[in-house]
């Protein structure tokens, strides 16, 4: 039986880093959103780890909240992406660079 929460935390850290990698490298706005999902997933894993080893049921409660928050962000993010597509006919993020300097 695994009794060291740091193992799970490390898995979460790997997921989070992969999310970071995706956020930096992806050019498609939806691709970036997917990477953000990975980061959020890492957070959930963290929370449940702490729930298992430190706090108990409240870890699951916190996770439910973060899942909901993530979904909300996806919803509004996709709406913006659709809007971007309508005005610029593409969703590659580097075409949205009219506003600068």
């Amino acid at each position: 039986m695994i009794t060291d929460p740091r193992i799970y935390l490390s898995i979460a850290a790997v997921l989070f880093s992969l999310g970071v990698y995706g956020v930096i490298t992806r050019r498609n706005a939806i691709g970036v959103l997917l990477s953000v999902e990975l980061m959020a997933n890492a957070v959930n894993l963290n929370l449940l780890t702490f729930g298992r080893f430190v706090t108990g049921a409240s870890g699951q409660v916190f996770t439910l909240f973060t899942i909901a928050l993530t979904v909300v962000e996806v919803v509004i993010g996709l709406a913006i992406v659709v809007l971007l597509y309508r005005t610029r006919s593409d969703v590659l993020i580097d075409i949205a660079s009219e506003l600068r300097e």
Partner: protein
Amino acid sequence: MSIEHLALVAWLTPLAVAALLLVVRPVRHTGKPAAALSVAGATVSLGAAIAALVQSSARGGEAVALTTPWLRRAGEVMADVGVYVDGTSVTMLVVVTTVAWAVQVFSLSYMSDETPQGLGRYYAFQSLFLFSMTGLVLAPNMLQFFLAWELVGLCSYLLIGFWNHKPSAAKAALKAFWVTKLADIGMILALLLQFTHTGSFGWDAHAAELLHHAHVTYLGMPLVAAVALGFFVAAMGKSAQFPLHIWLPDAMEGPTPVSALLHAATMVAAGVYMVVRAFPIFEHAHGVLLFMAILGAFTALMAATIAVVQTDIKKVLAYSTVSQLGYMVSALGAGSVMAGYFHLTTHAFFKALLFLAAGSIIHGVHSQELGEMGGLLKKMRFTSTVFLIGTLALAGIPVFSGFFSKDLILEALLHGTHHQPLLWLPLVMLLAGVFLTAFYMGRVLFLAFLGEPSEKVSHAHEGGLAMMLPLGVLATLAVVAGFGGSWLSGLYGVEPYHFAVTPVGLVGLTLALAGLGTSWVAFGRGAPAPWLATFTPIGDFIRAGVVDRGFAWGYRVALSGLASAVAWFDRYVIDALVNLFGVLALYLGDRARTLQTGNVGDYVYAVIIGVVVFAAFSQVML
């Protein structure tokens, strides 16, 4: 009414007028009636100020105050607002209101070509300025002083840029505001230092004691010196001391009456006034005082040198103002409040007189170039007379006010050398300045009024009663103010002043006469003597002869050449150095803006880098 109530009237009447003119558009847009209202306000203010002076004088300049708690922090009063009237502030109050009144009356005629809206705007700013300046003079503490100080700066900005169709005016306004604000950092830091260590913004002896006895040092300076230095840096900006004087000549882009009021008589003297007020603090800071003495003298000499080659009559007067402010600062640095303050008073009258007289000339000739003037004596007798009075006062010729105050400054420096031999240096510079002052003023006087009238001059005429009345009043004051010395010393509560003929005074007088004489030799015909223009033949007066040629050469190389060189240096090096700061900032800004690539990916990357930096920091620190 009691003194403090009179002071309150003098302070708040212009506020009422300003508020009315600024807020109520129909009133502002009436033009002439708005102007009349403003002048009426200034008149009330002046009357109240004089009445306060009379009462205060009867009571020996005893300090009275009328204040109300203004700012509270943590339940304690941090600062009061109100009026503080003693011998020092009440005289300054009278000086300010007198000059402001004269200028406002003068402007009735001078600005008569403006549109009603423009005139209303002009007088709104004028009243606002008078309110701010009297608020500064009567300030019971450093905080109110600072607020008023900033507000006069704002008025200066608005008034320099008043003729907004001139790009040069807009640029000059910006520069003036910016340079003085830069200097104000000194004041903010000094205020922060003072408040942190004494818990008050007072400038009285009590605050000075606390500062003096705090055993804290900043940048190797005792606390009291750091505070004094901060205040002085701000004064350098407002009172145009080298190298922060660069805004003042440019400020001449404003209407001439504005130059007379703000940039000659009152606002620029605010820095000097501040040192006088805060002298309890300054007198503990010997290093700062020495610095002031030397810097002031250097400014005086440098500006006087530059004034010699200016061809614009207002520019001559502007550099002359810088120079005279240097005299005041130097006197204060030598430890003599009386000398510095006395000169401030007399200078306010005669310099305002000179500026307004110049305004009268400009109004008549429609030019500011000395080369286009000449022979005005025949056309403008009254203006010629008052300009002569102003010149003699500035040059330091006996009977006229400037003589007494300048004499006292020289004595103060000489006296100072007993304790501090280094003060010989500023003394010598100031004496050289005396010669140059007389010389350049003689030059203006002769070039403008003597000689043959030019085409432009032939149409010149006096500007009417509204112009002549203020000139007359100021001319009178420029003569009699010098005799008020002993009375003033009583009012300030310093050791009694009596005029006495002293060796250093005689040296100064000789130099002044020599300066006028030299300038008569050079410009006595109302135009530059021929030998000034060319190396070849000299006029009747000094025909041939090695001595004369030597004189000519000496003038061209030593004086004119030097002056041109200094002027060039001032224009292109000092100015550039101060501008460099701005240019560098702009350059950096232009580079920095390229960081803003517009690419979302870069923005997100910046966020991630921020997170990484935060995370790394947390791991390094633990």
